[in-house]
């Protein structure tokens, strides 16, 4: 099982013929992921090391049975690829692209909610189900199969925590990097719901950061609906207000969105919150 990505995942890569798309799609395939198609308009009929390329996603889906879209195209064209994937009826979109304008992301978010198509990202490292499939850019060697689900907005912070869990002998069911932009397809709360329902996940590690109120909303959801143990970490206690800390969404506005408030909300919801990545891994290890 696992969530979002499993042995039945068949990936179609938008931007397969580009440098990034090619590099990561081939790495994903080498890991065992079924990468069945690529899409680049005008390059239909070609192939990338045996992966057939189509002009449209609809054609790729029809010919290969692809059910998951992985998007690597440049920011100005990325939302178009996501709409195209949704209209080609894929089950999941993973959009890696960083730098998409907010006014392009907002209507996409809205459309995908109406269509009920889950999207991971944009501006994310993707989804890794260790030992089964990797859809995105996460380094796989740090992960190991197991029963802890991990969700984070940040790529490198995900790697840090996965690495620490693996070193402590704690494997992961699925690692989900939901992305650092203000409008993302799946929020912590959506991922937490899936982990809670996943028979192969025993506990959840949730990594938050400053900005917005997602962690607070997820805390309320956890208190009401999640019966598995949840371990949390929030980055950005030292972040000054009013400064965008690298991620477009990571900004403390006035008194809103502080790490302190988020950590407290999670603790009130019964989440064991660590003060740093090592501590959250230790808390999880002690319980597992």
């Amino acid at each position: 099982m696992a969530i979002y990505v499993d042995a039945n995942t068949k990936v179609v890569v938008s931007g397969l013929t580009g440098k990034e798309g090619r590099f990561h799609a081939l790495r994903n395939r080498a890991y065992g992921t079924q990468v069945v198609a690529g899409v680049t308009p005008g390059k239909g009929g070609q192939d990338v090391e045996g992966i057939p390329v189509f002009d449209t996603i609809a054609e790729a889906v029809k010919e290969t049975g692809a059910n998951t879209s992985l998007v690597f195209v440049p920011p100005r064209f990325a939302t178009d690829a996501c709409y195209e994937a949704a209209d080609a009826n894929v089950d999941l979109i993973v959009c890696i692209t960083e730098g998409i304008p907010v006014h392009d992301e907002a209507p996409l978010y809205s459309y995908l909610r109406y269509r009920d198509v889950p999207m991971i990202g944009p501006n994310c490292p993707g989804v890794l189900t260790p030992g089964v499939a990797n859809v995105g850019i996460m380094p796989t060697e740090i992960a190991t199969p197991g029963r802890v689900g991990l969700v984070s907005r940040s790529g490198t912070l995900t790697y840090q925590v996965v690495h620490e869990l693996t070193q402590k002998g704690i494997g992961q069911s699925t690692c989900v990097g939901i992305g650092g932009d203000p409008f993302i397809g799946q929020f912590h709360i959506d991922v937490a719901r899936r982990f809670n329902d996943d028979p192969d996940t025993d506990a959840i590690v949730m990594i938050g950061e400053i900005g917005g109120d997602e962690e607070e909303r997820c805390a309320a959801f956890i208190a009401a609906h999640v019966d598995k143990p949840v371990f949390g970490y929030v980055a950005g206690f030292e972040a000054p207000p009013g400064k965008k800390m690298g991620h477009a969404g990571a900004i403390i506005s006035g008194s809103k969105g502080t790490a302190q408030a988020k950590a407290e909300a999670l603790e009130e919801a019964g989440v064991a919150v660590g003060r740093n990545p090592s501590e959250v891994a230790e808390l999880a290890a002690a319980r597992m």
Partner: protein
Amino acid sequence: MDLLEYQGKQLLADAGVPTPAGDHANTVDDAVAVADRIGYPVAIKAQVQVGGRGKAGGIKVAGNSEEAREHASGILGMDIKGHTVLRLWIEPAAEIAAEFYASFTGMVSAEGGVEIEEVAAANPDAIARVHIDPMLGFHPYHATNLVYRGGIPAEHRRGVSEVLTQMFAAFESLDAELLEVNPLIVTTSGDVVALDAKVTLDENAEFRQELERFREIFATDPQERAAKEKGLNYIKLQGQVGVIGNGAGLVMSTLDVVAQAGGKAANFLDVGGGASAEFIANSLEVVSSDPQVKSILVNIFGGITRGEEVANGIVAALDEVDIPQPIVVRLDGTNAAEGRQILGDNPKPNLHSATTMLEAAAEAVRLAQGA
């Protein structure tokens, strides 16, 4: 990208929103000349990219040339929440009958001119919010809901609705992340006017927006200035430990871990994904040039970023630039072993390596405090 008030007002004016006519000035003499030309009374307003100017004394009304000179010289050079005032905006003083607050994503309040967060805390009913579906856009019923629920007096509802509609059109067409007018006033003659503008534009939309015209480097801090020129994602902080890392989350976490080890970070610097050796060298140079930095912590967990590129950058920086501070390097992830090998093959007296993030932070703090 945060615009100055007058830049935001010019964009609003282009979108049809009524704004006061005025001009900007960078010196006291110019300010007085502008004020004389406009005619008194005038408002003299500090142009800084931060809120709370009025409370800080950055906005004054002058009734004549002498007062204009007095206020202009008082405000220019003033520090407002860490921002030095380098420019003034001078406009006719408004005769205000009523003040409101308007912001997209949408809020309207019957208490304008004050910090909206305080209103939200003290009197939440004074703020009306509507959710605008970006697929649908801003419709008349949105404006109706805002003006009725926001307590706008009957005689001003039509005028405020019209301005809200124009503001939303500007919000979309400019690729704004934030478009806030506080206060939105009604003058004694009944006109609705945007007396202030706080506009943040989305730099990701640069391919379809003209942003270069706003890209003045206002940073007076030498490291922030150098970082902007080199395209680094750098934010100055107050401590002694310089921090360089990859990925926003990991760098934020590094700042926290430094604080937990008993130190304080001197900066936030995210080299992003796939940083080249040259980028790492530039980063080290900028962080090292800060006199408050006593040690430097490089924390890299490679995904797209490769360990050997980071190591080559550090070695190159130490060869080319004089970096007096001790540097603690922690490398993990993609090609970390190759990176550690390169650092091991090029020993430098001020280069220290650590195996974990916590050890690295503790070592950097110890070195900063021993310096």
